[in-house]
């Protein structure tokens, strides 16, 4: 079996395996039996990704598509892609197994499984693509599948699927969103970023010698120097807008919060290894090959772009963490925390521009960002899967639960405790080592580049992040009060899902000390300063666990729960501007165009012209002869005049 076959199976198996259930949508008895087939398709992808990891590391595969245009099926198994491929496929597979229980009896299974598998296949295409155009194909696949999945419960008839408190209003705005609205908010925001990103790819295609847009082969330095300072800033910023919208960075974060109207399995996949991770991953991948730490001095404008990414990332991280402290809904709290984590990934990856240290040929900051992505993926997927079970059991999307619930839902309780403590950076658990390296990156910026803000934002985010995950843990299993409704049933696949997911955090912990490059990274954890941060995080976690609510802060909590009124941008300012433009176009553009082309000028003109042309058809031979003879005579006179002319 060669690599081409493996790639073919990897991308097509999820899609092909979900076609039967999509086709059989009218036959309910068949639809109920087909989901395992869709899961099997993802299992095939998982096996293929593992094969690529083990058998074909660090290779480059090129299969012609439109070679004249430099657009080909170019796939790579570089360090980032081969590991991310396995992470994506594994997480998708575990969530799919969980989904067999979670989605049982749903009214729209064919839709769900088709888009779920398309989502996975699209992400795998993004992960392995080395050609920017091919990557964009997968990118668009993610967009359409996310729209389908977030708006899955399109009937908008169950309050438990909503986001926000029903009937809550702030000024003219209703702060409650239904699934169909959530789907719309997602696709509209993402499209806003996709268009500039596509234009940026087109510009890179134009500038690249021989139109080569293979990420790993493009002469980035040459291309960006040719673009000039302004060109570099414009092109890369346009590209970044695509990544920022997908990864819900400021000010494009709103869609991610209301994406929680989708099924929990979708939230889990969306927040861990696909969609939002895609933005951060692609940023890491292109940074890997642009090598800004080497070329920034020679390419004017490049440092500006990375500074922008650094600041957008870190501010988004802090904003996300801060707003999450006031969140009441389980999944929305996790969504805000995801935004925060993605901000840290962007910030750390962007910091690579000023970090020259390499480990085994890889930039230190990028390595940190990537392993934080992996750790976060498994931890966050676990928390979402537990959330799904909690919502199922308590029939509420708001955080509530006490020790009694914890004792009756032991697996969920344990998984949550592990996932939260392992993710926030409590020593010596998994994320601690990665976050320590992150601290070191920002410290480097302070010492060598005199940038204080990044370190301050990182530390503030780390402590706040610890508080929010502690709140999630405690409000659902300890101090969240007795649930109003509790209906626990045995759902083995769901329990398997989050236990399998959380167990991967131990695997990563083991790898941190077993793999050479990761151990180099983990060394930062042994420094006293890192330990100090770790202790601060632990203290914050413990305090928030025992005191999750502070009455004096309730107003600011509500402000945070309202996401600092950022929904106004999406739901008020954008529509007002949009409708203004639409009215302008309607009143002064459309009517004019309509009048000109469709109702008045052109139709009248053509009607009269047409009648004029046909008016000479009187039917008499004599008239026709006169016309023809007259015209021939005219021609002859013309020729005669020509003849006498000098």
């Amino acid at each position, binding site marked *: 079996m060669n690599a081409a076959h493996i790639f073919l199976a990897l991308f097509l198996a999820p899609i092909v395996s979900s076609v039967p259930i999509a086709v059989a949508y009218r036959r309910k008895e068949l639809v109920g039996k087909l989901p395992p087939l869709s899961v099997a398709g993802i299992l095939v992808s998982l096996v293929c990704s593992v094969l690529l990891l083990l058998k074909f590391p660090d290779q480059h595969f090129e299969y012609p598509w439109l070679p004249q245009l430099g657009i080909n099926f170019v796939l790579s198994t570089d360090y980032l892609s081969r590991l991310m491929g396995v992470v994506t496929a594994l997480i998708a597979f575990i969530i799919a197994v969980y989904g067999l229980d979670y989605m049982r009896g749903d009214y729209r299974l064919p839709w769900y499984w088709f888009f779920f598998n398309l989502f996975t296949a699209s992400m795998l295409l993004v992960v392995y693509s080395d050609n920017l155009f091919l990557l964009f194909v997968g990118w668009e696949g993610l967009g359409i599948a996310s729209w389908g999945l977030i708006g899955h419960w399109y009937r908008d008839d169950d309050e438990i699927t909503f986001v926000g408190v029903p009937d809550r209003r702030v000024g003219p705005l209703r702060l409650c969103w239904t699934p169909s609205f959530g789907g719309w908010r997602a696709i509209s925001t993402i499209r806003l970023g996709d268009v500039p990103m596509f234009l940026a790819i087109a510009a890179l295609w134009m500038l690249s010698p021989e139109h080569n847009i293979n990420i790993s082969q493009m002469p980035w330095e040459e291309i960006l120097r040719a673009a000039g300072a302004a060109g570099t800033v414009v092109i890369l910023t346009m590209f970044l807008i695509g990544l920022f919208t997908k990864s819900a960075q400021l000010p494009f974060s709103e869609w991610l919060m209301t994406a929680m109207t989708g099924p929990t399995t979708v939230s889990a996949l969306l927040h861990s290894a696909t969609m939002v991770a895609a933005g951060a991953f692609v940023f890491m991948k292109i940074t890997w090959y642009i090598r800004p730490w080497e070329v920034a001095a020679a390419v004017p404008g490049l440092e500006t772009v990375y500074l922008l990414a650094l600041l957008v990332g870190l501010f988004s991280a802090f904003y996300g963490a801060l707003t999450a402290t006031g969140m009441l809904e389980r999944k929305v709290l996790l969504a805000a925390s995801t935004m925060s984590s993605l901000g840290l990934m962007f910030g750390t990856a962007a910091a690579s521009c000023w970090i020259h240290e390499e480990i085994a040929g890889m930039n230190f900051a990028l390595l940190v960002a990537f392993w934080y992505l992996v750790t976060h993926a498994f931890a966050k997927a676990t928390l979402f899967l537990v959330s799904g079970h909690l919502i199922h059991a308590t029939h509420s999307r708001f955080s509530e639960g006490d020790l009694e619930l914890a004792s009756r839902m032991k697996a969920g309780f344990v998984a949550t405790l592990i996932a939260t403590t392992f993710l926030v950076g409590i020593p010596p658990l998994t994320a601690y080592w990665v976050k320590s390296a992150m601290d070191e990156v920002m410290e480097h910026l302070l010492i060598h580049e005199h940038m204080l803000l990044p370190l301050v934002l990182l530390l503030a985010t780390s402590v706040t992040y610890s508080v929010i995950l502690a709140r999630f843990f405690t409000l659902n299993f300890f101090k969240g009060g007795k649930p109003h409704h509790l209906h626990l049933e045995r759902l083995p696949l769901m329990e398997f899902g989050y236990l399998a997911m959380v167990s991967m955090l131990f695997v990563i912990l083991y790898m941190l000390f077993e793999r050479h490059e990761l151990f180099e990274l983990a060394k930062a954890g042994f420094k006293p300063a890192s330990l100090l941060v770790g202790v601060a995080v632990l203290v914050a976690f413990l305090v928030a666990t025992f005191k999750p609510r502070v009455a004096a802060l309730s107003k600011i909590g509500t402000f945070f729960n309202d996401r600092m009124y950022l929904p106004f941008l999406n739901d008020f300012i954008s529509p007002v501007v949009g409708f203004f433009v639409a009215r302008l176009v309607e009143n002064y553009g459309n009517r004019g165009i309509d009048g000109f082309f469709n109702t008045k000028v052109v139709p009248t003109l*053509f009607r009269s012209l047409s009648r004029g*042309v046909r008016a000479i058809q009187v039917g008499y031979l004599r008239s026709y002869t006169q016309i023809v003879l007259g*015209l021939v005579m005219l021609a002859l006179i013309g*020729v005669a005049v*020509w*003849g006498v002319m000098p």
Partner: protein
Amino acid sequence: MCACVLPTFVTELTLAALVILTLGAAFSYKWRGVGFASAVIALILGLLAAKSDAYGVLVFAVALINLISLVALDNRIKGVDYCLVGLMGLATLTVFTVQSLSLVLAALVLVSVPTYVLVMLREGGANTEIGLKYIVFMVFATVLFFIGAVMLAAGGDPVLGYVLLILGLSLEVGVAPLHEWVPDVFAAADPIPISVIASLAKIVPFVAALRIITSFSFDERLVLFTAALAAFSMFAGNIGALTAREHARVLAYSTVANMGYVLACVACGAACGAAATPAGGVGGASGSELALALVGGLLLLFANSFGKIGFFNAIKGEGSFSPFMFILAFSFIGVPPLLGFWGKFYILLSLVGVGYLWLAAVLVLNSAISIPYYVRLARELGVGWRLRLTDVVVFIVTMFTLATVALPLVEWLVKSMGVLSLGVM
């Protein structure tokens, strides 16, 4: 040796075909089937003699389809009508390769005169009034064409010769503003003979004119005159068709427009001048624009032929299968990859090549103007699936229109240009 033997062989085959047609016509008074059979045999012999490669095959196809569609029209000279169409087909087959002006002009007469009879055919009588209207203009056209051609050949005033030739051609095929006879004749005559006049009869005048024109070089102003005439015809035809109600009348104006498109190729031919060696093949032509113009013009003539046969048969049969109607309409509009698209495509390439960008723009604009009436025609003539003779004819022409979906076929049509002769003296 081959070159010496073949021409003799060609003459014999052509003569045999003519004899068979004459005998067929005579015997068809007694046995009607004989006329049909002799026309088919004559066409096969003509195809073998002509050696015009792809274009011979296409002419053969058009003539054969015309013959088949004539079966649907019962008339007083049944049997002889097949032989007349056979004669037209035979003349059309020879016009691509014959080497002298007299034979080219003879081909023109042989294509033109049978239509004088055909136009009058109808069930249970004769359309004498239409015949009169048609014949007057055809005779006039032939005279103008002949004077122009002979004047050019004899070394007379080239401007006068060229203008007369173009006026004769315009009147013959129906280029505006000399198109007055077209809407009346198309609307009043029986659709089947009109389908012959609108298809087979259009090919020879253009090929003859192009072959004569490419023997000389002309003043740029004459090229401009031809281009202006072409543009005028496109606009008059397409705009006239927009509000015409009768289907046959719409098709008449569509013919005027299409003849404008083909006249653009003639302008191109005049612009390229005597680039081609006299009596040489297009393969030897130094200007590739000329080859493109010829390919474009011929493909458009064939697209027009198949489309007109299809639509007139649909009128005769009071509608035909709707998807076929739309395919023919789209071919007329120039939707890729149908036959009509390739015709317009190559004409555009040649116009751009000789620097007539404005005419190329006019052609594209006119294709856009034509969309409403072609779609209307397809919608009004389109019905459900039936199987009658006219529907079979529509099916066959649709298949020909669709054939260019296979790109190798387009390549073949372009390559076949190499075997055609240019220049006549």
